């Protein structure tokens, strides 16, 4: 058991690419080099192995032993945080487990949207935030300017902040000293009833769920009966321990208030260990759970179908496996007339959706067709009922619809001032309302917009990047549902509606969207044996139309002795090509057509 005043719990926050992971690597190396010099090689080897196996322990939390300049031995718990807006809640729970945060700022780029967002989040949790100026090795680095920006924009003293090159390993000691001297030691009564915050969990096929916790009060020991305060589930602790770069290190004495570690309790699924839930003693429960728990709600929904219908069971197995480790992924069976059997999947955001899709395709070797992502609409019907709809298929007829509401987000864009105009254009095109903007300095601007989430989930981020040469950064959070004027667009191929291509759009956008979709489909559907009309309709009324011309010529003019074997091979190839097509009624549609309608902004 560690004395509380020798404990420091901290995380690292940064905009993406500002060097968070590299700094974490250096801190681990530096502390191991001091405390366990003789084991250094082995440690690195093992970490490599961990990486190969994809279990990066330090991605969760890691306990470092550090002897500071004052000659005292300290225990530093570094808790990692995911770095994307999709995972804001997870970030907030990691922050809640800490007393302080290192704010890594790229000395060449200065503050970015996520820097601000994460800083505000950290300050909300009363964390001591210590700026670190990284990448001082870059020729374009200007640490003074970055420091001034931090002082000016965030109001944190930064002129004395450690100047670091995580890449070259420079300034790492200064960071460790800052952690010891600048971040408060945890408080919390070890004698009080147990309250431990779950900030992450991971499924292990041998031990069940490994739960990552920060003890706020009380103690946790093997054999203890515990209760999850949110779910009410009760378990008996099997093992407690701390997290080392090498892996888990059991400690039979258990953990006490202020410490960060893990426990196992033969838990079958991560659903029973919700991030943000409070673990308490079953026999002597705490009066109240820790504040801040929120049930994680998917924001973006999409139909996921196997390209080959026979792979449906494989897709289900793959989703089941991913779900073991990802409590925020939801899915339920869905049937589409066009695509057959698949799943309606819920994701935290677009990045989460892309990660899941990529893992399904790469790790589980599945070819997928995914439908356009949708947000959750709140539908008020004429009969007084309200419904939450995450699938355009369930959108009611205009006659049953009183009015719909759609989710809005508060978006925060940081940009060089040169791009303010084009960002305003973009946000206006996406139905955003301007709230305010603030010059951070002469040429950097922070802009605040209210935007419909439904407009962001298509290609907003790509459009933002391309219109600002990649310089603008974006952060957003859900704010509220607002009454809106929406319609459902239906796509008809050869006169038959294709349910999987339906989507919901603002009335003002209906015509241009419909035209773009029709054009995109025309370009992506190969000529068929007959002319294929591509129509887009609103409530039965056609508002856009294109035609895929009939195939006129696909013939082998000469077929004599020598050509017959060749022709047979050709037919085989044709068959392979057909496999990548999906038959929608009588029309063969390639997978790309489904994706193409998602990217309407390209020209």
């Amino acid at each position: 058991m560690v004395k509380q005043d020798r404990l420091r719990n901290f995380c690292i926050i940064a905009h993406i690419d500002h060097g968070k992971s590299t700094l974490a690597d250096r801190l681990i190396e530096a502390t191991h080099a001091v405390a366990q010099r003789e084991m250094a090689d082995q440690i690195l080897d093992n970490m490599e192995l961990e990486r190969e196996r994809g279990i990066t322990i330090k991605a969760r939390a890691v306990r470092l032993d550090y002897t500071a300049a004052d000659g005292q031995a300290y225990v530093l718990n570094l808790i990692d945080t995911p770095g994307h807006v999709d995972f804001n809640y997870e970030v907030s729970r990691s922050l809640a487990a800490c007393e302080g945060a290192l704010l890594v700022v790229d000395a060449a780029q200065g503050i970015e949207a996520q820097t601000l967002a994460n800083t505000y989040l950290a300050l909300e949790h009363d964390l001591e935030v210590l700026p670190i100026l990284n990448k001082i090795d870059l020729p374009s680095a200007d640490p003074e300017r970055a420091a001034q920006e931090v002082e000016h924009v965030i109001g944190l003293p930064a002129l004395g902040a450690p100047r670091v090159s995580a890449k070259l390993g420079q300034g790492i000691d200064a960071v460790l000293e800052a952690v010891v001297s600048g971040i408060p030691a945890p408080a919390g009564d070890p004698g009080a009833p147990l309250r431990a915050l779950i900030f992450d969990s991971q499924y292990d096929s041998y031990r069940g769920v490994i739960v990552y916790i920060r003890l706020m009060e009380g103690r946790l020991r093997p054999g203890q009966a515990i209760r999850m305060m949110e779910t009410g589930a009760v378990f008996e602790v099997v093992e407690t321990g701390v997290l080392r770069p090498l892996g888990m290190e059991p400690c039979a004495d258990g953990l006490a208030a202020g410490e960060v570690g893990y426990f196992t309790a033969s838990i079958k699924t991560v659903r029973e260990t919700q991030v943000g839930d409070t673990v308490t003693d079953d026999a002597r429960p705490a009066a109240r759970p820790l504040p801040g728990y929120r049930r994680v709600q998917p924001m973006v929904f999409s139909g996921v179908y196997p390209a080959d219908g026979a792979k449906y069971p494989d897709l289900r197995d793959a989703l089941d496996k991913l779900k073991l480790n990802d409590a925020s992924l939801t899915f339920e069976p869905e049937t589409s007339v066009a695509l057959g059997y698949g799943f309606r999947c819920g994701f935290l955001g677009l990045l989460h959706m892309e990660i899941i899709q990529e893992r399904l395709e790469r790790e589980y070797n599945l070819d997928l067709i995914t439908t356009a992502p949708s947000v959750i609409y709140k539908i008020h019907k004429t009969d007084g009922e309200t419904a939450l709809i995450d699938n355009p298929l369930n959108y009611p007829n205009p006659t049953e619809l009183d009015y719909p509401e759609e989710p809005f987000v508060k978006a925060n864009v940081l940009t060089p001032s040169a791009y303010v105009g084009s960002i305003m254009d973009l946000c206006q095109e996406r139905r955003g309302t301007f709230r305010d903007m603030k010059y951070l300095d002469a040429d950097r601007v922070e802009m605040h917009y209210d935007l419909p989430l439904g407009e962001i989930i298509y290609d907003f981020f790509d459009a933002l990047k391309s219109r600002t040469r990649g310089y603008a950064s974006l952060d957003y959070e859900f704010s509220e549902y607002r009454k809106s004027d929406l319609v459902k667009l239906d796509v008809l191929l050869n006169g038959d509606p294709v349910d999987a291509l339906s989507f919901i759009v603002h009335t003002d956008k209906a015509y241009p969207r419909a035209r773009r979709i029709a054009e995109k489909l025309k370009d992506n559907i190969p000529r068929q044996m007959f002319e294929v009309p591509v129509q887009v309709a609103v409530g039965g009324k056609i508002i856009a139309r294109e035609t895929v011309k009939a195939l006129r010529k696909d013939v082998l003019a000469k077929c004599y002795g020598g050509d017959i074997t060749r022709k047979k091979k050709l037919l085989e190839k044709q068959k392979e090509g057909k496999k990548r097509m999906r038959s929608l009624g009588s029309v063969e549609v390639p997978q790309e057509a489904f994706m193409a309608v998602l990217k309407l902004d390209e020209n």
Partner: protein
Amino acid sequence: MGQAVGLYLHIPFCQKKCDYCDFYSVPGGDERAKQTYTKALAAHLTETAPALTRHTVDTVYFGGGTPPVLGLGPLHTLMDIIRRRFPLAAGAEITLEANPGVVDDKLLKKLRREGFNRLSLGVQSLEDDTLALLGRVHNARQAQSAFEGARAAGFDNIGVDLLYGLPGQTVEEWRATLREIVAWGPEHISCYGLKLEEGTPLWRDRADYAFPDDDAQADQYLAAVSILEENGYLHYEISNFARPGRVSRHNLKYWTLAPYIGLGPSACSDFGGRRWSYVRDLEAYVGGMLGDGDVLHEMEELPPEARAAEYLMLRLRTADGVSGNEYVRLYKGNFEPVERVLEARAAHGFARSEGNRWRLTPKGFLVSNRIIADVLEARTEGP
């Protein structure tokens, strides 16, 4: 008499290789090479003859290349072996492929006298500019005089090969060409859509030319079908038209799964339940035949299953089309899934039926690759 077999001899020599051609041939070729080749082919013929003693040979086809380039003497040597050692049927069709520009009146007479009774003339186009850019060695006037010379020499069965889809060619120009050819009065006309074969000079320079697009080519094809049918030619295969009784009996074997044996480099055979071909290389072929090397390029065994697929794939190229009765009788196959695909195509005018015999319409021939693929897929997926 036994089963009738076709005999094909590949003569891989040309005066000059055309810019669109990817058949196996060697341009020029000195006299020595031709003599050695004749020896090799003669040896192959002699070696093959015993396999056909219980059959008859009712068609012989000298193709290439440009067979007359081999020379009269060698052609005589080969014909002599065929006459002496093969069970040549009375009235056998003996075709020689030729190009205008390599045959004059005198040569044509001698070739006729040698026993060739059908001439296939590569006219291709009647536009001199087009002929030049295709790398042909003749002009339109020479083509017509070769045709007339062949008639004068006594060829009463002449086929003319034409190309459409040529650079800059309009439907009107193509119609005019067809009308003029019809006026010559050939017994047989083949119309091939120009296909850009990868690696040919025309393919390399393709960016320099304006080729008619697929829609224009389809219009040209349909124009040919209607002009030739109006003028009494039967449209008996996708690209082939003939006066009644004057179809190419040899070529028909390819599409009706009749047996044939092909000799020479790149030549193919379908005989005794196998399909095979010889190396696509003159030196390797000659070396193999005259020494004891291997001349086989590839061979496949054809179980009834594969035959049934070939039946559908090849018969659908012909005016006779496929017959459900025949299919069931020959291959014990289930014709129903095939028929379902064809019925669906018939609804759009791509196919039509009499009883359970199905054939593609001209519009259907134009997209026959797709239809055949669908038919074959339905067949393997069917109950």
